[in-house]
Protein backbone atom coordinates (compact mmCIF):
# COMPACT_ATOMS: atom_id res chain seq x y z
CA UNK A 1 0.00 0.00 0.00
CA UNK A 2 1.54 3.29 -1.12
CA UNK A 3 1.26 6.58 0.71
CA UNK A 4 0.10 9.68 -1.10
CA UNK A 5 3.55 11.18 -0.57
CA UNK A 6 5.18 8.18 -2.27
CA UNK A 7 2.85 8.50 -5.25
CA UNK A 8 3.48 12.23 -5.45
CA UNK A 9 7.23 11.67 -5.32
CA UNK A 10 6.96 8.92 -7.93
CA UNK A 11 5.32 11.31 -10.37
CA UNK A 12 7.94 13.97 -9.60
CA UNK A 13 10.74 11.46 -10.17
CA UNK A 14 9.31 10.56 -13.58
CA UNK A 15 8.95 14.24 -14.47
CA UNK A 16 12.59 14.82 -13.53
CA UNK A 17 13.58 12.75 -16.58
CA UNK A 18 12.78 15.89 -18.63
CA UNK A 19 16.07 17.74 -19.01
CA UNK A 20 16.01 21.23 -17.48
CA UNK A 21 12.63 20.84 -15.76
CA UNK A 22 12.65 21.27 -12.02
CA UNK A 23 10.15 19.20 -10.10
CA UNK A 24 8.43 19.58 -6.78
CA UNK A 25 6.38 16.97 -4.98
CA UNK A 26 5.23 19.73 -2.63
CA UNK A 27 3.61 23.06 -3.42
CA UNK A 28 6.39 25.70 -3.26
CA UNK A 29 5.81 29.24 -2.00
CA UNK A 30 8.17 30.71 -4.57
CA UNK A 31 8.48 28.44 -7.62
CA UNK A 32 11.62 28.63 -9.74
CA UNK A 33 10.62 28.02 -13.39
CA UNK A 34 10.53 25.94 -15.38
CA UNK A 35 9.04 23.73 -12.72
CA UNK A 36 6.46 20.94 -12.49
CA UNK A 37 4.46 20.93 -9.27
CA UNK A 38 2.56 17.79 -8.27
CA UNK A 39 -0.68 18.35 -6.37
CA UNK A 40 -3.35 15.92 -5.19
CA UNK A 41 -6.72 16.73 -6.71
CA UNK A 42 -9.11 13.94 -5.77
CA UNK A 43 -9.19 10.49 -4.20
CA UNK A 44 -11.84 7.91 -5.05
CA UNK A 45 -11.85 5.20 -2.40
CA UNK A 46 -13.32 1.69 -2.57
CA UNK A 47 -12.74 1.01 -6.24
CA UNK A 48 -12.56 -2.69 -5.33
CA UNK A 49 -13.78 -4.69 -2.35
CA UNK A 50 -11.49 -5.01 0.69
CA UNK A 51 -9.79 -1.72 -0.31
CA UNK A 52 -8.23 -3.53 -3.24
CA UNK A 53 -7.81 -0.35 -5.23
CA UNK A 54 -7.99 3.42 -4.72
CA UNK A 55 -7.96 5.93 -7.55
CA UNK A 56 -5.88 9.06 -7.06
CA UNK A 57 -6.10 12.04 -9.36
CA UNK A 58 -3.14 14.38 -9.32
CA UNK A 59 -2.72 17.71 -11.05
CA UNK A 60 0.69 18.49 -12.44
CA UNK A 61 1.12 22.20 -12.99
CA UNK A 62 4.02 23.20 -15.21
CA UNK A 63 5.18 26.81 -14.86
CA UNK A 64 7.50 28.55 -17.29
CA UNK A 65 8.85 32.07 -17.01
CA UNK A 66 7.27 34.86 -19.08
CA UNK A 67 10.38 36.98 -19.68
CA UNK A 68 9.85 36.45 -23.40
CA UNK A 69 6.26 35.55 -24.26
CA UNK A 70 7.12 33.83 -27.50
CA UNK A 71 9.85 31.68 -25.96
CA UNK A 72 7.67 30.88 -22.97
CA UNK A 73 4.92 29.61 -25.23
CA UNK A 74 7.30 27.48 -27.30
CA UNK A 75 8.70 25.96 -24.09
CA UNK A 76 5.25 25.21 -22.73
CA UNK A 77 4.15 23.73 -26.07
CA UNK A 78 6.98 21.23 -25.82
CA UNK A 79 5.83 20.14 -22.35
CA UNK A 80 2.28 19.70 -23.66
CA UNK A 81 3.27 17.62 -26.67
CA UNK A 82 2.43 13.91 -26.69
CA UNK A 83 5.88 13.16 -28.10
CA UNK A 84 9.40 14.47 -27.70
CA UNK A 85 11.95 14.65 -24.92
CA UNK A 86 10.03 17.37 -23.04
CA UNK A 87 6.63 15.65 -23.15
CA UNK A 88 5.04 15.58 -19.70
CA UNK A 89 2.79 12.74 -20.82
CA UNK A 90 5.71 10.58 -21.89
CA UNK A 91 7.76 11.41 -18.82
CA UNK A 92 5.04 10.63 -16.28
CA UNK A 93 4.25 7.36 -18.06
CA UNK A 94 7.93 6.41 -18.37
CA UNK A 95 7.58 4.34 -15.20
CA UNK A 96 3.88 3.56 -14.91
CA UNK A 97 4.09 1.81 -11.54
CA UNK A 98 5.85 4.87 -10.07
CA UNK A 99 8.70 2.74 -8.89
CA UNK A 100 6.47 -0.11 -7.79
CA UNK A 101 4.19 2.04 -5.64
CA UNK A 102 1.15 1.99 -7.98
CA UNK A 103 -0.71 -0.48 -10.15
CA UNK A 104 -0.67 1.92 -13.07
CA UNK A 105 -0.80 5.57 -14.01
CA UNK A 106 -1.78 7.57 -17.05
CA UNK A 107 -1.83 11.23 -18.02
CA UNK A 108 -5.40 11.66 -19.17
CA UNK A 109 -5.49 15.28 -20.33
CA UNK A 110 -4.05 18.75 -20.29
CA UNK A 111 -6.83 20.92 -18.95
CA UNK A 112 -5.61 24.48 -18.93
CA UNK A 113 -3.03 26.65 -20.65
CA UNK A 114 -2.48 30.29 -19.84
CA UNK A 115 -1.13 32.88 -17.44
CA UNK A 116 -1.20 32.32 -13.70
CA UNK A 117 0.00 34.50 -10.86
CA UNK A 118 1.96 32.89 -8.05
CA UNK A 119 3.35 35.05 -5.24
CA UNK A 120 2.77 38.18 -7.35
CA UNK A 121 4.73 36.78 -10.29
CA UNK A 122 3.01 35.97 -13.60
CA UNK A 123 3.96 32.69 -15.24
CA UNK A 124 2.73 30.82 -18.28
CA UNK A 125 1.30 27.53 -17.04
CA UNK A 126 -0.30 24.31 -18.17
CA UNK A 127 -2.04 21.77 -15.98
CA UNK A 128 -2.17 18.04 -16.55
CA UNK A 129 -4.39 15.42 -14.95
CA UNK A 130 -2.67 12.24 -13.84
CA UNK A 131 -4.78 9.22 -12.90
CA UNK A 132 -3.04 6.82 -10.53
CA UNK A 133 -4.41 3.43 -9.51
CA UNK A 134 -2.95 2.06 -6.31
CA UNK A 135 -3.90 -0.02 -3.31
Amino acid at each position, binding site marked *: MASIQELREGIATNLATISGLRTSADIPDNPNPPVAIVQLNRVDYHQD*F*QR*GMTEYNFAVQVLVGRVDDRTAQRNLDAFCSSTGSSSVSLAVESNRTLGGKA*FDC*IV*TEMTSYGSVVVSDVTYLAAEFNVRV*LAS
Partner: protein
Amino acid sequence: MAKQVLTDVVVMLNGTAISQSVNSVELSLTSDAIETTSFGDTGFRTYKGGLKSGSITLSMHNDYASTALDGVLWALWNTIATVAVYPAGTPVGTSTPEYEVTALIDNLTPVAGAVGDLAVQNLTWTVTGAITRSES
Protein backbone atom coordinates in the same frame (compact mmCIF):
# COMPACT_ATOMS: atom_id res chain seq x y z
CA MET B 1 -24.34 -3.83 11.92
CA ALA B 2 -27.73 -3.40 10.33
CA LYS B 3 -28.12 -2.00 6.85
CA GLN B 4 -24.71 -1.63 5.34
CA VAL B 5 -22.64 -0.38 2.46
CA LEU B 6 -20.81 -3.08 0.56
CA THR B 7 -17.10 -2.45 1.02
CA ASP B 8 -15.59 -5.55 2.58
CA VAL B 9 -17.22 -8.25 0.48
CA VAL B 10 -15.03 -11.33 0.21
CA VAL B 11 -15.16 -13.30 -3.02
CA MET B 12 -13.39 -16.65 -3.26
CA LEU B 13 -13.02 -18.40 -6.59
CA ASN B 14 -12.04 -22.05 -6.18
CA GLY B 15 -10.36 -21.11 -2.92
CA THR B 16 -8.49 -18.11 -4.30
CA ALA B 17 -9.39 -14.74 -2.78
CA ILE B 18 -10.14 -12.36 -5.63
CA SER B 19 -12.02 -9.73 -3.60
CA GLN B 20 -9.43 -7.03 -4.13
CA SER B 21 -9.92 -7.26 -7.89
CA VAL B 22 -13.73 -7.28 -7.72
CA ASN B 23 -15.78 -4.11 -7.69
CA SER B 24 -19.27 -5.55 -8.10
CA VAL B 25 -20.94 -8.86 -7.36
CA GLU B 26 -24.50 -10.04 -7.91
CA LEU B 27 -25.82 -13.43 -6.95
CA SER B 28 -29.19 -13.87 -8.61
CA LEU B 29 -31.48 -16.68 -7.48
CA THR B 30 -34.70 -17.75 -9.15
CA SER B 31 -37.19 -20.56 -8.98
CA ASP B 32 -39.63 -21.66 -11.63
CA ALA B 33 -43.22 -20.60 -11.07
CA ILE B 34 -45.33 -23.67 -11.82
CA GLU B 35 -48.92 -22.78 -12.51
CA THR B 36 -51.51 -24.60 -10.50
CA THR B 37 -54.57 -22.63 -11.59
CA SER B 38 -57.66 -24.76 -11.93
CA PHE B 39 -61.32 -24.28 -12.60
CA GLY B 40 -63.02 -22.66 -9.68
CA ASP B 41 -60.04 -20.48 -8.70
CA THR B 42 -62.21 -17.36 -8.95
CA GLY B 43 -60.34 -15.87 -11.87
CA PHE B 44 -56.91 -15.59 -10.27
CA ARG B 45 -53.85 -17.64 -11.28
CA THR B 46 -52.07 -19.70 -8.65
CA TYR B 47 -48.52 -21.04 -8.61
CA LYS B 48 -46.13 -23.18 -6.64
CA GLY B 49 -42.35 -23.22 -6.66
CA GLY B 50 -40.51 -25.46 -9.09
CA LEU B 51 -36.84 -25.96 -9.86
CA LYS B 52 -34.35 -23.47 -8.46
CA SER B 53 -31.53 -21.91 -10.42
CA GLY B 54 -29.15 -18.99 -10.27
CA SER B 55 -26.35 -17.02 -11.78
CA ILE B 56 -23.47 -15.03 -10.44
CA THR B 57 -22.16 -11.83 -12.00
CA LEU B 58 -18.76 -10.41 -11.15
CA SER B 59 -17.23 -7.13 -12.34
CA MET B 60 -13.49 -7.30 -11.99
CA HIS B 61 -10.42 -5.20 -12.64
CA ASN B 62 -8.12 -7.38 -14.64
CA ASP B 63 -4.53 -8.12 -13.67
CA TYR B 64 -2.22 -9.85 -16.12
CA ALA B 65 0.63 -10.44 -13.68
CA SER B 66 1.74 -14.01 -13.14
CA THR B 67 -0.66 -15.89 -10.80
CA ALA B 68 -3.00 -12.86 -10.75
CA LEU B 69 -6.65 -12.66 -11.78
CA ASP B 70 -6.32 -13.18 -15.52
CA GLY B 71 -4.34 -16.38 -15.04
CA VAL B 72 -6.73 -17.66 -12.37
CA LEU B 73 -9.73 -17.16 -14.66
CA TRP B 74 -7.97 -18.62 -17.69
CA ALA B 75 -7.21 -21.84 -15.83
CA LEU B 76 -10.88 -22.22 -14.91
CA TRP B 77 -12.39 -21.61 -18.35
CA ASN B 78 -14.89 -24.33 -19.31
CA THR B 79 -14.71 -25.95 -15.87
CA ILE B 80 -16.96 -26.02 -12.84
CA ALA B 81 -15.69 -23.76 -10.08
CA THR B 82 -16.77 -22.95 -6.57
CA VAL B 83 -17.66 -19.32 -5.92
CA ALA B 84 -18.11 -18.24 -2.32
CA VAL B 85 -19.38 -14.78 -1.47
CA TYR B 86 -19.27 -13.26 2.02
CA PRO B 87 -21.22 -9.99 1.66
CA ALA B 88 -20.31 -8.76 5.13
CA GLY B 89 -16.80 -10.16 5.15
CA THR B 90 -15.43 -12.95 7.28
CA PRO B 91 -15.58 -14.83 9.59
CA VAL B 92 -18.96 -16.37 8.86
CA GLY B 93 -21.56 -15.72 11.53
CA THR B 94 -25.21 -14.97 12.09
CA SER B 95 -24.89 -11.49 10.62
CA THR B 96 -22.08 -12.35 8.21
CA PRO B 97 -23.43 -15.16 6.04
CA GLU B 98 -21.69 -17.06 3.29
CA TYR B 99 -23.29 -17.87 -0.05
CA GLU B 100 -21.66 -20.67 -1.97
CA VAL B 101 -22.37 -21.90 -5.45
CA THR B 102 -20.72 -23.95 -8.11
CA ALA B 103 -20.76 -22.30 -11.49
CA LEU B 104 -19.86 -23.19 -15.03
CA ILE B 105 -17.08 -20.82 -16.09
CA ASP B 106 -18.39 -20.68 -19.63
CA ASN B 107 -17.33 -17.15 -20.57
CA LEU B 108 -14.35 -14.87 -20.08
CA THR B 109 -13.38 -11.51 -21.55
CA PRO B 110 -9.60 -11.41 -21.04
CA VAL B 111 -9.37 -8.21 -23.05
CA ALA B 112 -12.08 -5.56 -22.98
CA GLY B 113 -11.77 -1.81 -23.19
CA ALA B 114 -10.89 1.18 -25.30
CA VAL B 115 -7.68 3.18 -25.17
CA GLY B 116 -7.23 4.70 -21.73
CA ASP B 117 -9.80 2.41 -20.11
CA LEU B 118 -9.17 0.24 -17.12
CA ALA B 119 -8.87 -3.44 -18.12
CA VAL B 120 -11.98 -5.18 -16.85
CA GLN B 121 -13.77 -8.50 -16.96
CA ASN B 122 -17.53 -8.35 -16.40
CA LEU B 123 -18.75 -11.92 -16.32
CA THR B 124 -21.97 -13.79 -15.61
CA TRP B 125 -21.81 -17.51 -14.94
CA THR B 126 -24.63 -20.01 -14.67
CA VAL B 127 -24.92 -21.78 -11.36
CA THR B 128 -24.89 -25.56 -11.60
CA GLY B 129 -26.20 -27.54 -8.66
CA ALA B 130 -27.09 -26.38 -5.19
CA ILE B 131 -26.86 -22.90 -3.77
CA THR B 132 -26.13 -22.77 -0.06
CA ARG B 133 -26.33 -20.07 2.58
CA SER B 134 -24.58 -20.66 5.88
CA GLU B 135 -24.15 -18.72 9.09
CA SER B 136 -21.49 -20.85 10.69
